[in-house]
């Protein structure tokens, strides 16, 4: 798929630290893109460059092949992590104002506001001041403000924070719906389970550098360790050097759980055959152990740590 956004070798430095160092990304159109990274990795800096709040020191951003400029503002929607609305403004007026700043006409904006308020069942709050709303309700209003102008690219920074599970689910469904309608979503978060559930592609940023990116399935394959989980009954004894038992658990009623890493060249069928051939072993479940994004995340962050520490040491010398 053609990328809607290309980040090319972007560098951004502040007075006493480098926020982004040669970061390149491609965000395919019509996908949900997970931008991951520990706190302070540079995610917000990158988002602020894409939303044109700040500019990059070096490198370039392209929106649908064009160098990013003011005309793209109308096609981008942004929900920052720091939520905020004008407290003393009425919900309807506030939405109208923000939509018009994004280039929507008064008529279009009014019609869409009505639609969205109905959809989120907060129609009766349109005439209330924002400060009179509950926090969850303010979040809904802010979400509406982000997507009201039907942006092609929606950037959501921690979209689920501050929502109760019911509303988080509502927002999740809206995000998927927007994607189905053709929008591209960049989604920055720490909540790995939602990444796994929703993202098509991810990029991991650590210490101002991109350390990993690609389609989520490909990344998982990359991080597979050729390990399989087996459950069943009996007392398995794996004496072959082909198999390395990573974890073994005995459970009540003669049940067992095994995690077995296969040596190079050994295939899962070999393990299965070995187990079936063993006396008194009944296999109930057999599956490949796929690393979770959380595990990949932690592993990659740990892996990239010494490198950067080394650099810091070099810089000091």
């Amino acid at each position, binding site marked *: 798929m053609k990328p809607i956004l290309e980040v090319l070798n972007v560098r951004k430095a502040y007075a006493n630290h480098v926020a982004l160092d040669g970061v390149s990304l491609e965000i395919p159109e019509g996908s949900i893109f997970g931008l991951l990274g520990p706190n302070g990795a540079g995610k917000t800096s990158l988002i602020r460059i894409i939303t044109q*709040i700040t500019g990059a020191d070096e490198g370039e951003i392209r929106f649908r092949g064009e160098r990013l400029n003011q005309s793209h*503002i109308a096609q*981008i929607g942004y929900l*920052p992590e720091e939520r*905020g609305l004008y407290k003393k403004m009425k919900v309807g007026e506030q939405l109208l*104002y923000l939509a018009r*700043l994004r280039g929507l006409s008064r008529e279009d904006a009014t019609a869409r506001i009505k639609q969205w308020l109905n959809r989120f069942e907060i129609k009766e709050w349109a005439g209330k001041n924002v400060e009179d709303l509950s926090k969850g309700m303010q979040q809904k209003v*802010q979400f509406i403000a982000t997507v009201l102008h039907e942006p092609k690219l929606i950037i959501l920074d921690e979209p689920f924070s501050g929502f109760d599970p019911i509303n988080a689910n509502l927002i999740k469904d809206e995000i998927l719906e927007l994607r189905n309608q053709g929008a591209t979503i960049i989604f920055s978060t720490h909540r790995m389970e939602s990444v796994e559930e929703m993202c098509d592609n991810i990029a991991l940023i650590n210490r101002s550098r991109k350390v990993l990116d690609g389609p989520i399935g490909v990344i998982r394959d990359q991080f597979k360790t050729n390990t399989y989980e087996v459950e069943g009954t009996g007392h398995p004894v794996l004496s072959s050097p082909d198999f390395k038992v990573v974890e073994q658990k005995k459970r009540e009623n003669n049940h067992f759980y095994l995690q077995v890493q296969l040596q190079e060249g050994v295939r899962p069928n070999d393990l299965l055959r070995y187990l079936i051939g063993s006396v008194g072993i009944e296999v109930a479940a057999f599956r490949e152990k796929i690393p979770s994004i959380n595990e990949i995340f932690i592993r990659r962050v740990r892996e990239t740590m010494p490198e950067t520490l080394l650099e810091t040491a070099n810089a000091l010398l």
Partner: protein
Amino acid sequence: MASKFFLIAQREYLTRVRKKSFIVLTLAVPLLLAAFGFIIAKVASSDNDTTDVIEVRDDSGLNIASHLVSTPQLRFEAATGTLAEAKKSFLKAKHDGLVVLPAGLDVENPTGVQFFGKGNISLKKELAVKNALDKAFSDLKMKKSGLSQEQLDRLRSKVVLQAVSLDETGKEADSNALATSGMAYALALAIYLFIFIYGVQIMRGVGEEKSSRIMEVMLSSVKPFDLMMGKIVGIAAVGLTQFLLWGVLSFGVSSVVLPMLMGKDKPKTEVAAAPTAPGAAAASAADEPESAEVAFDKGMDTQKDQATNPAGRFAFFNTIANLPLGTILFGFIVYFLGGYLLYGALFGAVGAAVDDQTDTQQFMFPITMPLILSYIVGVSVILRNPDGPVAFWMSMFPLTSPIAMVIRLPFGVPAWQLALSIFLLILGFIGTVWVAARIYRVGILMYGKKVTYKELGKWMFYKG
């Protein structure tokens, strides 16, 4: 992006104008001013209305009492009975004083005249009595030297001084220091108040925006410069609306409500003035409209005399008509807007730089300093010497010129000075907006950091 700028300014304007506090303040101020004016007028007129009654016991045998001329403020009556009785009776009659002219008083060297009063005698009263006595004695002496009453009346003259300002081209114009100063003062006060009230509103507005954390959303839609200027211009429109309404309402209140209230007092004033046939010229003060009196009471006494007698009043209005009104209006608008925009940008920068309203003090000081200074120096030094070196330099420096120059304007300013000052103001405006926009741009997204001046300096050179 002009339409975004317009949207921002419009929001700033509408949200403020629709606030209850705006409506209340807009209505209350003219009423308070009117009430204040009414009280001052009341106090001033009641002061003039009262007539001090002075009893006179003339034992001198010179018939001095007949030469004492009563005025609306001072009435002389002959005392009765012995000295001791007179002393008692003037107290009892609630009269204000007793003048005793002793027997054997020498016209050439009148000593021993006594003036008794209730408690301490005010200087004003003492002077009035002394003046009346002086006049009576000189009348008496002139009569003695053989002049008739008619000749006496003709000898006495009342000079009306008409001040005329003469400019280099030889053009003459009525000059009235009170009118010119009053105008200068009013213009300066308007600019000072406007910058202060609405400058602080800019600062608060930015602070609120910052603390509500809406900046990031806004900045992904608009440029920080548009956001800042939109706010400044929107609040300026609020201020102009408020000032305009204050003007219209004050005018309405003072021309409709006040005369209705004052109307009741009118006959009383005339009654008080009626019995004083002689000295009618001086008495005309009482017939003046109160509003004029209030204004002139603040002025110097000589100015008051001039303004209150018909010729003086003519000069007063003539002076205003003869002032370079076109230049004043032009200059006022330029300095009003220029000064507001210049200071507004700085106030906006302060609002952006700090997290906490309480932290604003340290940054407010260097901004309000030149403003307060130019006002204080303006109404003291510059108003007295509008062509002096202080006036000149302060009207050139962009932070002080908005106030300093408008004070000078009614007195006449050479064209080159005005041009240079406006040029410098525009330069200053561009400079401060540039600086403020940079501080603003960095500051609005900076949270939880105690900002120092050094930090602010660094912000200037951050890249976009």
